[in-house]
């Protein structure tokens, strides 16, 4: 104790490399390839799902590029919250911080629910019926919270291993079914012709966008590691951009294999489409491998979500946007331990008491609001701090084209969500308006106004 207190302060540990950043981003998202994306097939058929996959791919490439540029200069926990604080202002920062915490905590809860469902599926396949899913849901959350509590290096090394295995499973399934090795069982021409090509026309393509986001939702979480990577200016852009490329490949391969094995009417409502595809391939090895991949993808996502939600909560508390008590760092493990602990019961309540589609919709909507903020963020960043004033680790090309493309695609995604979940969309926007009023009229008086801007940046242009 005495030795530790001699240093007078304690902060998060800078121990991560680019591979951990990749594992954080891809780990959160890859579960979307294993399940969820296929509801886009139900909305508009297989072609619509492919178009949604690539449109969403463009959206997230813009997200990754914009994020990489800004984060390579803002090497602090909190990710987009910290960016908003420095570039836009306190009210935007407060909202973005909440979007982050809700998006990741809800996604963590959804992953835990899915983990329980997967264990139940395995039990049913082995002849046991009536399994109680609750202990497995709770175990997933408690184990991952414990891992996060004990240190970021072990947490994200664990994510790296299980994410790599889950990604390898997708590649192996593709190689085994595409005809590269042996005879291909895929029947694209038969399953995607005639009325099955575009069952709901172009409106179906638009509606498919809602679930097309699942292929990539969460890749922006890499920025939360900014305060814990050894070389933020290099590792964050590298890990994030490598992550979005990995996901574009995994998404396309997933679509290719699944749409060639299952008719759109079935695929559009399947619970675990990649696992189903492995079963349809007739190979026991593939079935077991993809089963393990599904479970690992689910755990990796929940693990990354705990990491990211706790960093966002911690960063907000450190600036007194929330009670400063949450801004504590564990002296031995160097983690934001009180933020990790605080979010555990919240995740448990949603995992045990809320329907999964509502939980996921809340997560997607919070994510969408966050993406809508990004174009504004990068335009203001370039205007206030032009390229020659701050050295970036990465400069994204074609500015402001990615910002406008992102804004247009967000508009399209909002409309797609409105078609299916209009009430939730309106309710959530109302919620954020209410908490904004609370922040403006009450909480802002406690904010550590002078101490929150600690980056050694020059004054903004025109200041």
């Amino acid at each position, binding site marked *: *104790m005495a030795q*530790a*207190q001699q240093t*007078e*302060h*304690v*902060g*998060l540990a*800078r121990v991560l490399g680019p591979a951990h950043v990749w594992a954080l981003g891809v780990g959160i998202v890859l579960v979307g390839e294993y399940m969820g994306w296929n509801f886009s097939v139900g909305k508009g058929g297989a072609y619509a799902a492919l178009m949604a996959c690539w449109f969403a791919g463009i959206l997230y490439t813009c997200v990754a590029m914009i994020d990489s540029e800004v984060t390579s200069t803002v*090497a*602090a*926990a*909190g990710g987009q919250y*910290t960016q908003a604080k420095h570039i836009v202002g306190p009210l935007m920062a407060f909202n973005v911080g909440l979007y982050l915490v809700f998006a990741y905590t809800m996604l963590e809860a959804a992953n835990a629910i899915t983990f329980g469902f997967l264990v139940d599926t395995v*039990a049913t396949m*082995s002849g*046991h019926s009536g*399994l*109680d899913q609750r*202990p*497995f849901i*709770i*175990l997933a959350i*408690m*184990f991952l*919270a*414990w891992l996060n*509590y004990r240190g970021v290096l072990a947490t994200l090394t664990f994510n790296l291993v299980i994410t790599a295995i889950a990604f390898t499973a997708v590649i192996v399934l593709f190689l085994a079914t595409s005809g590269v090795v042996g005879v291909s069982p895929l029947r694209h021409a038969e399953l995607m012709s005639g009325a099955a090509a575009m069952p709901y026309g172009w409106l179906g393509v638009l509606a498919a966008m809602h679930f097309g986001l699942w292929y990539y939702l969460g890749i922006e979480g890499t920025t939360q590691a900014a*305060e814990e990577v050894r070389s933020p200016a290099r590792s964050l852009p590298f890990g994030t951009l490598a992550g979005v490329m990995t996901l574009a490949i995994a998404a396309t391969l997933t679509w290719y294999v699944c749409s060639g094995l299952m008719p759109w009417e079935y695929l559009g409502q399947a619970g675990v489409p990649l696992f189903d595809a492995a079963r349809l391939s007739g190979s026991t090895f593939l079935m077991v491998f993809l089963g393990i991949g599904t479970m690992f993808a689910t755990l990796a996502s929940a693990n990354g979500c705990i990491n990211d939600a706790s960093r966002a909560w911690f*960063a907000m508390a*450190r*600036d007194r946007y929330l009670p*400063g*008590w949450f*801004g*504590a*760092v*564990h*002296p*031995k493990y160097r983690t934001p*331990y*009180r933020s990790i*602990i605080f979010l*555990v019961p919240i995740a448990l309540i949603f995992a045990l008491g809320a329907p999964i589609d509502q939980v996921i919709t809340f997560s997607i909507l919070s994510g969408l609001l966050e993406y809508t903020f990004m174009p504004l963020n990068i335009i203001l960043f370039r205007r206030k701090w032009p390229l020659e004033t701050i050295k970036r680790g990465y400069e994204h090309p074609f500015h402001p084209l990615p910002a406008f493309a992102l804004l247009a695609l967000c508009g399209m995604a909002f409309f797609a969500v409105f078609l299916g979940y209009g009430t939730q969309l309106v309710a959530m926007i109302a919620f954020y308006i209410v908490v904004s009023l609370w922040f403006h009229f009450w909480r802002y008086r406690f904010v550590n106004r002078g*101490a*929150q801007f*600690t*980056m*050694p940046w020059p004054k903004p242009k025109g200041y």
Partner: protein
Amino acid sequence: MDLWNYLEYAAWGASALFGLFIVLNWIKTDSTYSEEFLTSSREGELEALTEEQHHRG
């Protein structure tokens, strides 16, 4: 009682152990160190230090 019933009990038990470790360590940490020390982390510490050294150099 088959294997899955035992696994259910094992999952309850393991969850309780992880929870117990977290809570006990949390109490121990909070009672060992001062609040000022635990909440002493500041954003951009390393960057500010690097910048300072750069100016000195």
